[in-house]
């Protein structure tokens, strides 16, 4: 899994490309924790290039959400692909992590 981020003014976009699974989940956690630690607490995880997610990947996403909230911010997801969407719906996590069509829209309301 390739992880990159860019600061977009009001929020920081984390681009996660590849498979978000047991092996890469810890990487995402550390990566987002570092971004939060560097001062950004409004984070959009762009899943447009995430082709697959398993239970560990889902756990990592929620863990990142927690980290953002603890820092007083929020974490949102964008551009979810079909398999990831299925996992989110199956576990009802789509109700916790609202998915936006694009990174720009994620924090568009505030």
């Amino acid at each position, binding site marked *: 899994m390739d992880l990159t981020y860019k600061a977009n003014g009001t929020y920081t976009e984390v681009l996660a490309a590849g498979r978000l699974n047991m092996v890469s989940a810890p990487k995402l956690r550390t990566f987002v924790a570092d971004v939060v630690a560097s001062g950004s607490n409004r984070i959009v995880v762009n899943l447009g290039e995430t082709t697959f997610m398993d239970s560990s990947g889902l756990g990592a996403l*929620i863990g990142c959400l927690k980290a953002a909230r603890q820092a007083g911010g929020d974490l949102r997801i964008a551009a979810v692909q079909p398999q990831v969407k299925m996992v989110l719906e199956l576990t009802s996590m789509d109700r916790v992590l609202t998915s936006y069509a694009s990174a720009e829209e994620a924090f568009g309301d505030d």
Partner: protein
Amino acid sequence: MTRFWTRLIVVLTVVFGLNYVIWRWAASLNWDAWWIAVPLVAAETYSLIDVFLFGMTVWRLKIRTGAPPAPSGATVDVFITTYNEPLDLVLTTALAAQRIRHPHSTWILDDGARPEFRDLAAEHGLGYVTRGADWQDMPRHAKAGNLNNALMVTDGEFLLILDADQVPEPEILDRTLGYFNNPRVALVQTPQYFNNVPVDDPLGSQAPLFYGPIQQGKDGWNAAFFCGSNAILRREALMQLGLVGYVQETEKSIRRALAASRKAIRTARKSADATSPFVDQMLRDVETATEHASAQLDAGHSLSEITYEVRQKVDRAVHALVQADVHALQADLEEISAMDLAIVGDAGVKVVADDAVQRLSAREWSPLGAMESVQAVLDALSVERTGEAQPVMPLATISVTEDMATAMRMHSLGWQSVYHHEVLAYGLAPEDIGTMLTQRLRWAQGTIQVLLRENPLVQRGLKWGQRLMYFATMWSYLSGFAAVIYFAAPIVYLVLGILPVSSLSFDFFIRFIPFMIANQLLFAVAGRGIPTWRGQQYSLALFPTWIKACTTAARNVWFGRPLGFAVTPKDRQEGGPRWSLIRPQIVVSILLVIAAVVGIARLTTGLSEPIGTLVNVVWVVYDLVVMSILVRAVLYRGYAPVEHPSGAETTSAANMVDRRKEP
């Protein structure tokens, strides 16, 4: 009485042979010329072992007086195997097979799947079998695969196997089926004899020594083996072979998968990604499961239970990991909810349902999928034998000479074989040296493949006599290396004056000559007037073929390289004699002649001594006479029938040799 004389001469040959070779090793080596002395004595030792094995073979020569009457109710399928032989040739054989007296069904096993064959078979009321869809993209295993395929769609108790050119006599089954009254008999082999061979047999096609004293001798040790055609087999024995083979293959593949999975897990655990305690726990569980499975395998538990259990345990471990992920996630959600209830929503903390956990644990979304290597080897833990067209392969597929490999496996399961020394089918031999060389190469390659894959000396279930009988045939195919040394030694002496023996003294002759005489006598007595000279010539003269067979078979078995069949061009009649096929032999012959001339010149100038020169010139002449057969072979233009002008023999044998490639 012949038996007494044969045995006496065997004993004499062995005693004289040991007397000579032990002296050669102990007292005669010219260490100053070790580079030729040691190879020569090694080659001589090779030959001595070869003679020992031959002596052992004829020691128990079994002359059978015929089979009891055939059991009337025995059902028989006659299989005629074909790949690319011409239609009329196969049809001649098939119609003759149809006329076999004992009730039977005749089948054409057409590996070429030629539609016109199907029609022709239907027209004549012959059975017709081709490979099914299961064989698509699977290893085809040439003739063994063809027979295995047919075994699955037929049901006769006994199978008569015929090559496409082997025209059977009507009484072939009446004469042989009776042997199967003994319920332990699994195979009756009859000779292969060729109609289209002139009396002087320039290509050495007839094998009277093999289909005679050698098979009869092996028969005495219950080790007469299957030669691919003109043999009757018991289906039950073949099926048992297939099942045993299936179980062994499956066990082997499970063992491999278990070993590989342990390695993959170890690697995965070491990798930095696996730092999560949950992941580590899962991998530890999977590892424990595979270790337990290995132990159960060693203890002889059922393969299907072992693999099922491993899969269950792996599934449980994966499920536990998913559960742990979900628990952690839920704990995170609790914390988030404690911080800020509003955002989580009014319905409170979401709970991941059990069926979602199930779904996340299943093969498709399993976290274990992240460790592809682990997943792959666990997938390989199956009893389904993927990678083969049919799980049960009665005829051995480890060699291009499936016949010998199959017979050896039958013997090691305790079955018995019979060699029935009566020509009951007439075939067609190759009619040009190119085809003949391809055929010999294939036999030799197949034999060496069996030696390297399933060395008879270490096969459990075989008696020592049987082991040595199989080994004898394999050993004889190593003769190419010895031949090179036998050619080199006289050249070295005649040209350089270097003698590998410390002296050609009385000591040498007194030991060598009795051995030589006993040896020749042994062949004469055991052969009982059979012409064996042609066979002796070819066993030495085809040394490049034998060497090539050994090297290609070794590369194939050890490094998985293809055997690389020498493809013989079909337009053999055009372009005149093909001397290029025997180039190494021509080069060696020229060197021998030059050496003889140089040797004589050295003698006249006093550079070498008379006895040594004489012995070596005689040796050169012998070598040249042996190899002279190749000149006749290259010039041979095919069989011109004189004694039997029936016309049937005029079919060209150029298309007969099986040119199928190994998969």
